[in-house]
């Protein structure tokens, strides 16, 4: 027989979102990174184009989480507490395509660093690397609003990805993003309708669609991954079917989520059947990231250098020369 491949064409297309800005666009990045643009489900190359391949970011900290596993300290040592130096190392040694600066230390109960201090750290990272920057916050509304406003202001024109707003707290940060030309992450708790609602709220305040990235909220492997996985598939299917309020690229956090689970830290002597502690953390992150990749993630913020290497290699293998870069 001559087998005819059953193709299903989509009417919708995922919005293309560009992160970062070069001098020409009013920023100081050496290049920009564009995500999105898919007209088919992940890896369905036979029925639609993927204009851009998924990208891998790494994260640096204003204050490293005390629970991070030793494996991370082994790789980063003291630079774990030096965001500028760590960013440089992530880009030059481990091939990070973007850097996320996590400002957890600004949380009133986790150090209460001021908005000015946070802005200084972001500035420092912008100075130490030339890739586009993500700025990642937390859920203390009052404080993060202050912090993000300041960050947006000092990074004006850099088109940072401001991570994140949620339904109960979006106006201040979204307005700052519009005023100072940044892109925004809309985070919702593992639910298609809530995700859609937040995107509608944002576009209702004239937030430009080409500057929205969705975060469906990542559950790590073994900790609710299957919910994230299926919500992402459903969001992507609806987005491709023409629901414009779900047709945004998706960001996930396999690094942060995997670094905090017990499986990344527990000693092999306590759990012999779990295997080597040294590599288990990287494995946990790889399995999390890979499943999110096949369910629709375009931007992955990752931690373990070995996991970054493996996932980047797979993205390259899977997308090959199909897509420009």
């Amino acid at each position, binding site marked *: 027989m001559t087998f005819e491949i059953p193709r299903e064409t989509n009417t919708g297309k995922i919005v293309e979102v560009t992160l970062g800005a070069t001098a020409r666009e009013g920023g100081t990045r050496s290049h920009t990174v564009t995500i999105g643009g898919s007209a088919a489900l992940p*890896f369905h190359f036979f029925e639609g184009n993927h204009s851009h391949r998924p990208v891998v970011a790494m994260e640096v900290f204003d204050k490293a989480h005390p629970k991070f596993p030793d494996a991370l300290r082994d790789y980063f040592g003291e630079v774990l507490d030096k965001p500028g130096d760590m960013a440089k190392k992530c880009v030059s040694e481990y091939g990070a395509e973007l850097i996320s600066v996590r400002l957890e230390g600004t949380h009133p109960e986790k150090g209460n660093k001021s908005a000015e201090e946070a802005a200084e750290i972001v500035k420092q990272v912008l100075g130490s690397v030339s890739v586009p920057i993500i700025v990642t916050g937390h859920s203390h509304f009052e404080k993060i609003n202050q912090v993000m406003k300041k960050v947006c202001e000092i990074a004006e024109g850099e088109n940072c990805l401001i991570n994140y707003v949620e339904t109960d707290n979006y106006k201040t940060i979204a307005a700052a993003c519009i005023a100072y030309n940044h892109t925004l992450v809309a985070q919702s708790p593992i639910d298609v309708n809530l995700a859609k609602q937040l995107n509608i709220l944002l576009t209702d305040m004239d937030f430009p669609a080409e500057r929205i990235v969705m975060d469906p909220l990542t559950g790590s492997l073994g900790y609710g991954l299957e919910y994230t996985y299926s919500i992402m598939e459903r969001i992507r299917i609806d987005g491709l079917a023409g629901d414009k309020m779900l047709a945004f690229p998706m960001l996930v956090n396999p690094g942060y989520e995997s670094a905090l689970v017990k499986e990344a830290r527990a000693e092999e002597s306590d759990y012999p059947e779990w295997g080597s502690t040294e590599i288990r953390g990287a494995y946990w992150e790889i*399995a999390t990231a890979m499943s999110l990749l096949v369910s629709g993630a375009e931007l992955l913020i990752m931690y373990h250098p070995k996991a970054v290497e493996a996932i980047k290699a797979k993205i390259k293998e899977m997308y090959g020369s199909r897509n420009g870069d």
Partner: protein
Amino acid sequence: MALSGLDIFKLLPKTNCGECGVPTCMAFAMKLAQKKAELSECPYASEDAKTTLGAASEPPIRLVKIGSGNTAEVGNETVMFRHEKTFFHQTGIAIELCTSEGKNKLLEKIKEIENYGVERVGETLTADLYLITHDSSDPEDCLSAIKLAKEHSTKGIILNCRDDKTLREGLEIIKDDRPAILLQKELSDKDIELAVSFDGSLILTGHSYDDIDGQAKKAKAAGLNSLILNLESDNLGRQIQDNTILRRSALKKNIKSFGYPLFSYVRAENNFDLLARASALICKYASIIALPEYDKALLYSLFTLRQNIFTDPQKPIQVDPKVYPVGDPTPESPIFITTNFSLSYFMVSGEIENSGISAHLVVADAEGQSVLTAWAAGKFNGETIAKFIKDIKLEEQVKTRKIVIPGFVSMISGDLEENLPGWEVIVGCQEASDIPSFVKNVQLT
């Protein structure tokens, strides 16, 4: 063309004899329409019904079994996405045993794998199959490896042996154990004869859709239905795409020659790469994956992923209702309560851990429902919680007499105090993510 339950009902005898195991013909017709039954289960089906229903009543993807003790069952899937219903038969994980490793090393490896199992949310996760690869020259190596596996294990065996005579002798050893044969060359009549006479299944290897189609048709024409398809590609993107196309063709286009489980031998440069490949294949339709390595940490990650992906989305995983220690709690540590919906448990225990304190987490039996759903259904209220706390004899385990309830069910606090004399109820935060700040601001003991 898929037939509706009513279309099928018209073709049945309508005698409601019940011999098919279903009380009425209508109910049987509905089962047939959902591809949960086969027409052959009706002893009185007319020739007409058989012809009309023939193809339509078979499951779109065959169920294939390997092994007789711990049988691995794969295939019989009905949807492309797990949220549409569920994925029914989890990916079988096969560990490769190469005859070149030598008898002693193989024995050691088999014993280790047999003893290996890891507990996760009430399930013991283990490898399912062995792939015995004859990569040394002496036929005796192959036979002795098969004997070792048979003697020390009840897992199913897939044989990968290029020498016909050795293969036949090997199959003789495990002829009662539903073996599988991995063919790496074009299917021949001899292969079909072997599979049929040893009641085994054949894994067909092909390099194009047409190639696979031709081989599957040939085997089926010869009466062999236990087939597994191995469409080879070195590129992971290509593999996912191929798996998707084969599954979609079988489910939506009713292409019978693709309606079989899918096999992948995972080759990789290193174990990080191996895990990345295997993870993608578990998500995207591989029915069996064979791994060249035995690495506990890698298997634990893969098993967990497999458990996540193959969980029925309509029946969330429940955790055992009991008291869980978070950190190293003492009898004086704070006490939290939530339901036994796995995600609630994971979120709450994770955030208590993040907060840096040690505590007792009481996971109440709410039939796996989340806090608000369980409350609305009357399964998580003052009365049920008090009863649960008494049943598990919590007062004998701890000295604390304060309990933190989820903020979403603040309305039950009075009721709970009434039902639980001597206890003080503290209304906690609504979102688990707020636990770290909650514990800093509230006196919990």
